[in-house]
């Protein structure tokens, strides 16, 4: 068990040291070391600049507001998904994850079509903070629905019913019984959404209309436009400090919040809507989901079809420009996307699950600090990580221009997901189950295999789905490392959008639709695996 525990700690610490700490430290030092010593003047420059202080403040409050709005928007969906069975539920649940992988340029154009100056709904949010919030909700709603809904679908409804029969009204029963039980999942999902929106880049740049900038946007500008590494490094340090502070508050709050739950099989929880009121709730939720998630996606699908010649753009994907180095066939893009995402998921699960086990089964300040450290890659600027890898990873093996750096960078973003989604589930295992097994003579390994693993496997499936989606969507540092010729679906979309022409635009939309289909298919598959392998407990 000692060796096992050493390995559990060693894998995540080793991975994050090599692929996160070392690169980030290298690029920060490159910016901050001046003539052999540390130079702190860039920090002063940042603090005394009113516009940079404004950027920091905006970054913080827009992330907090986006997180709150996302949680609010997601709760009704999570409730209906957890409590009711209805036809098409699995497909809807898979579609919910699709926004997560869509390139911001593509989503931006769909949002502008729906909520811009020529909006068919008559709502013009163009260049307001509200279009940023709407996009953040669109992107992240799945994180909350799948995390919270996952727990909710196993909560015994009889607890709430008991409260009702003792005289509580619906709201009181929810607030005093269900909400406290869901809190670990809500806070876990909220912290992820916060980190995502805190480091938001594309949404702000494309929909924000330049009056808004986050630290992430400013770090990008300082690095690639002005090549001002000292200021970029100082901003990155402020970003890290901000993220750490928020995570610290979060971990203080989370302490002692986890409760051992008696969870039910989800089939015992969800039922078909029977009363008119329930049917209305389900129908209303589907319409609501249609408006906030399906409609923007439908705009893109519609644009991928040519009115005169329906499949023209899909056919063109395999033909137009096929002799050039920039050409990517759909099959090649899908193939690259899938193997890179598969590898990234595998790495993220191995590293993330080991780390989650360490965090879940230990307590004390060391474990809390470790937990906090594991979240940092999600809150660190992609520019900092990407250029850091470029500066640092040339020894002993030169990984800088190696294809493998792409899945490794994706895994780095996915690991915090795996940890965050797994720890609450692992902690929810009631200790007396383990004690009972030990009393009956089971070895620790056997206890882990027979009790912890099946329960953790639920988290494993959810986090595998997200890790895969993170990689499919090309999150994070990969935009800033030089990539060998392995175009994935998002890269192919960028290339097509980069050249004007009706045929190219249509093909970009067709490729986007393929990306949606691949994502939905993978999520459906993961959901199926979850049901078959883990069984119900």
């Amino acid at each position, binding site marked *: 068990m000692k060796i096992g525990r050493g390995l559990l700690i060693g894998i995540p610490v080793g991975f994050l040291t090599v692929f996160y700490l070392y690169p980030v430290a290298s690029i920060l030092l490159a910016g901050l070391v001046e003539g052999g010593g540390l130079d702190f003047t860039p920090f002063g420059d940042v603090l005394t600049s009113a516009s940079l202080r404004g950027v920091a403040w905006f970054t913080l409050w827009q992330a907090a507001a986006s997180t709150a709005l996302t949680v609010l928007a997601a709760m009704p969906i999570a409730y209906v998904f957890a409590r009711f069975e209805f036809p098409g539920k699995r497909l809807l649940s898979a579609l919910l994850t699709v926004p997560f992988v869509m390139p911001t340029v593509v989503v931006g154009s769909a949002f502008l079509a729906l909520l811009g100056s020529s909006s068919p709904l008559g709502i013009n949010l163009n260049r307001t903070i509200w279009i940023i919030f709407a996009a953040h909700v669109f992107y992240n709603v799945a994180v909350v629905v799948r995390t919270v809904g996952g727990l909710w679908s196993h909560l015994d409804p009889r607890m709430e019913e008991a409260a009702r029969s003792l005289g509580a009204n619906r709201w009181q029963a929810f607030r005093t019984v269900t909400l406290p039980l869901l809190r670990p999942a809500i806070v876990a999902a909220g912290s992820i959404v916060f980190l995502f929106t805190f480091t938001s880049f594309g949404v702000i740049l494309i929909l924000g209309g330049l009056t808004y900038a986050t630290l992430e946007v400013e770090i990008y500008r300082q690095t690639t436009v002005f090549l001002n590494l000292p200021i970029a490094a100082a901003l990155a340090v402020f970003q890290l400090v901000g993220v750490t502070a928020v995570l610290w508050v979060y971990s203080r709050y989370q302490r002692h919040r986890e409760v051992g739950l008696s969870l039910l099989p989800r089939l015992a929880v969800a039922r078909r809507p029977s009363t008119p009121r329930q049917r209305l709730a389900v129908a209303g939720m589907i319409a609501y989901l249609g408006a906030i998630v399906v409609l923007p996606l439908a705009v893109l699908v519609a644009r991928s079809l040519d009115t005169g010649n329906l499949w023209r753009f899909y056919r063109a994907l395999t033909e137009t420009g096929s002799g050039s180095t920039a050409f990517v066939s759909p099959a090649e893009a899908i193939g690259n996307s899938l193997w890179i995402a598969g590898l990234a998921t595998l790495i993220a699960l191995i590293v993330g699950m080991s780390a989650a086990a360490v965090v879940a089964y230990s307590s004390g300040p060391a474990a809390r600090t470790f937990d906090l450290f594991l979240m940092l890659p999600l809150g660190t600027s992609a520019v900092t990580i990407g250029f850091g890898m470029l500066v640092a990873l040339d020894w002993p093996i030169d990984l800088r221009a*190696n294809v493998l750096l792409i899945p490794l960078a994706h895994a780095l973003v996915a690991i915090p997901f795996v940890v965050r989604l797994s720890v609450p589930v692992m902690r929810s295992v009631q200790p007396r189950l383990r004690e009972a097994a030990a009393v009956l003579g089971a070895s620790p390994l056997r206890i882990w295999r027979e009790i912890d693993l099946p329960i953790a496997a639920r988290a494993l499936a959810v986090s595998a789905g997200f890790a895969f989606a993170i990689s499919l969507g090309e999150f994070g540092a990969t935009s*800033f490392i030089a990539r060998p010729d392995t175009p994935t679906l998002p890269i192919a979309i960028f290339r097509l959008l980069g050249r004007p022409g009706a045929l190219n635009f249509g093909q970009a939309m067709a490729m986007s639709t393929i990306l949606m289909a691949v994502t939905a298919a993978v999520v459906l598959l993961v959901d199926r695996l979850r049901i078959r392998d883990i069984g119900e407990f």
Partner: protein
Amino acid sequence: MFATRSVPRVGARLIGAVVGFGLLASACSGGGPDTVTLLTHSSFSISQSTLDSFTEQTGIQVEILDGGDAGAMLAQAILTKDNPIADVIFGVDNTLLSRAVTEEITLPYTAKALDGVHPFTLLDETNHFTPIDYGDVCLLYVQSDFEDVDPSGLFFNPSFGDQLVVEDPSTSSPGLAFLYATIAAFPEAWQDYWTALREAGVLVVAGWEEAFYGEFSGAEAFSEVPGGDRPVVVSYASSPVLEVLFATEPISEPTTAIVEESCFRQVEFAGILDGTDNREAAEQFIDFMLSPEFQEDIPLNMFVFPALRSAALPPVFVEHAEVVENPLGLDPEVIAANRDQWIEEWTEIVLR
């Protein structure tokens, strides 16, 4: 329960596969003396057959590294100058040239065909960078909206600002080129020009895609979906050619045209990265980039003009591409000295 039992074994096998794959991949990449690695931007494109012909002639394979946009690519080259990730860099333009020269990332090399290029492309006297192609960033307008107007007025008269969408120079390379165009055209009064544009209601967006597909009313001809409501956009001189070339139904004339007086010339350069262990192959590749075969392949892949004077143009370029006679330009040294200051001033005037 079988599934849970098999997890450790599957895990071990997968770890083995990952490690094995990693070793394999690292053994394959990196190249030997018979491979030249080209660091370039995401817009780079050339016919596969052209690269194959280079390999046939010399026995040297070409590997392409996509470094993102031109600014990010140059930042990568500068950050790795002690141990470069490639042998050749392509895509540094005249707006970035001075920074690249000052940082001393490349080795001097006089390409065999250098005396055959257009003289205006020779911007680096030290030959650390070799010109490969050039193109213009111009105002592009919807012809039917301005039938009775002299198009040059769209540039010279800032009251057209309410018709115009531009890109932010700090996030977009055409946006930066257009800022330079205004500085070159109105050296003493460019701040006033932008103040007037702002007062008239110019629209600024982050990137070319958002400007073109999101706000430009002429985009309908390029995407079959309604674009925005601005009939003038900062784009490339080749845009009308692409409109014809990539129309869904064949068209004979583009619906858009450029304002010649507003054009700023961009020249793209290639260089041999200092620290390459493959200098001879890199030199051969630079020479190949200036050969007629590569040069004549440029227009229909990257939609810019070849630097080599003798290179023949494809018919669609001859017919629809406007060769701008007297484009605007700025000395790379002047750009290097003022660039950050200009962008900050522009941001103050237009965005704050």
